[in-house]
């Protein structure tokens, strides 16, 4: 058997988590976008075809994410045990909300009753929020447990939902609505601002150097592709340039793509473990105790990082 040998620094310093792979990331990627899409479908007032298409797409996205997770868990035939800990587990709450999403969403798709469309939107937002709290509850991953990760995950889910809505609306009579396009610009602006806040908070409040390196490298491309470019496309569409529908669709897809890449990086690449920390190195012999150490973390002068 050819196994990689872990060197001691690999065990001492924070390292990328290896337990949640692309399947877990896919749940956050697809499920969050689906929840956001259901919410905006409830608010947008699209025509019947576009509303049905949007609801169906939202439900398919959420179902796809949950299916990916089902293939990831170690004991998939015990999956129903996930409903046992509603009191504190956000994973349980996500699973409970998912039942409501599919119930209300399915009925809304069939009947287009405004109350059901609205209910599916509210539950979609709740599903998205639950997913954000799943990440934030993981104290072992500093870049997830930061308080700003919750608004970031919610904001990107909403932005992706709005992006999908623009795409779907392009195929219905609502495609020309400037309000939807203007709303997309507002939402991506909010996402960009929260991203900036999150990154600044992590830099000051603390995260392993490896996580900061990856997130800092991601930032400019994420802002450019997921925010600046789609905003320019939307402005062009609103300004009356030809091929307005194509511009809108491209803008929506870029917003979605930016959010999906961000979530993949957050869940897979920038998810470094806490590592260890010693407030004091032990006294050895007659010498004094050694200073605090926290391998893999950048020291910030004047702050106690341990």
């Amino acid at each position, binding site marked *: 058997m050819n196994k990689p040998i872990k060197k001691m620094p690999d065990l001492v310093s924070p390292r990328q988590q290896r337990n949640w792979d692309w399947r*877990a990331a896919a749940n956050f990627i697809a499920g969050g976008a689906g929840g956001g899409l259901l919410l905006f479908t409830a608010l947008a007032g699209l025509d019947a075809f576009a509303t049905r298409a949007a609801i169906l797409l939202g439900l398919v996205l959420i179902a796809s994410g949950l299916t990916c997770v089902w293939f990831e868990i170690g004991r998939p035939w015990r999956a129903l045990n*996930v409903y*046992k800990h509603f009191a504190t587990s956000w994973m349980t709450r996500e699973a409970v909300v998912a039942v409501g999403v599919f119930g209300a969403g399915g009925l809304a798709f069939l009947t287009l009753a405004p109350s059901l469309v609205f209910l599916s939107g509210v539950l979609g937002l709740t599903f998205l929020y639950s997913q954000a709290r*799943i990440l934030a509850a993981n104290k*072992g991953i500093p870049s997830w447990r930061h308080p700003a990760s919750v608004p970031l995950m919610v904001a990107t889910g909403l932005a992706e939902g709005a992006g999908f809505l623009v795409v779907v609306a392009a195929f219905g009579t609502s495609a020309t609505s400037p309000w939807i396009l203007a709303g997309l610009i507002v939402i991506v602006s909010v996402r960009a601002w929260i991203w900036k806040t999150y990154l600044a908070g992590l830099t000051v409040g603390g995260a392993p150097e490896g996580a900061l390196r990856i997130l800092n490298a991601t930032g400019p491309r994420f802002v450019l592709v997921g925010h600046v470019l789609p905003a320019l496309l939307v402005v062009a569409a609103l300004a009356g340039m030809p091929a307005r529908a194509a511009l809108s669709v491209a803008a929506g897809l870029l917003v979605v793509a930016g959010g999906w890449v961000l979530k993949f990086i957050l869940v897979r690449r920038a998810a470094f473990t806490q590592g260890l920390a010693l*407030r004091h*190195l032990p006294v050895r012999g007659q010498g004094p105790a050694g200073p605090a150490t926290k391998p893999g973390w950048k020291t910030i002068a004047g702050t106690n990082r341990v």
Partner: protein
Amino acid sequence: MTRYVTTIDLRRCVGCQTCTAACKGANATPPGIQWRRVLDIETGEFPDVRRTFLPMACMHCANPPCEEVCPTKATTKRADGLVAIDYDLCIGCANCVMACPYDARSIVHAAHFSYGDKPLPSEAMRFDPARVAVSMKCTFCVDRIDEAAVTGRIPGVHPEVTPACVNSCISGAMEFGDIEDPESNVSRLLAGTQHFRMHEELGTEPGVYYLWDQS
């Protein structure tokens, strides 16, 4: 109330890994999985360098984040302070692995042994299929602790009911006992030393105390 904790005297640990081996022997963990391990930390710059040995395992937190996130109630906190896993409930979602800031949990998704898929006779005898594809970690040798309740022996005092790692420590760096009992070995040690718990700022209230100097 009883609250079992471990004290680890960093001044005494020599990094021999006997506790690591004793844990593997006692709990028959699969290759590559160490519920108890001793990290070797080098700090400083030449010529002012230090080497510190740090035994790590599940901290059996009073406020365990793994228990909070577990969707199945497979992870529970016992009245005596031990954090336990019910392998028959666990779905192997790894949420607890992510929640643990001490890197104490692991999941092995397929049975494997020292020489591949076929177990040695000794491995076959102790192989537990219930532990495949679920979360696992140090239990503080819970079967021994439970035996103490039956036999009346005292964990930390009588080796038969004391975790294997503590029993095996060649330098006496590790002690185990009830912190709520002021006469226990751990209470007396903590009263006479300076100590800290790792990542206390996260609010986990870990049950492992690292001693680093006398008071």
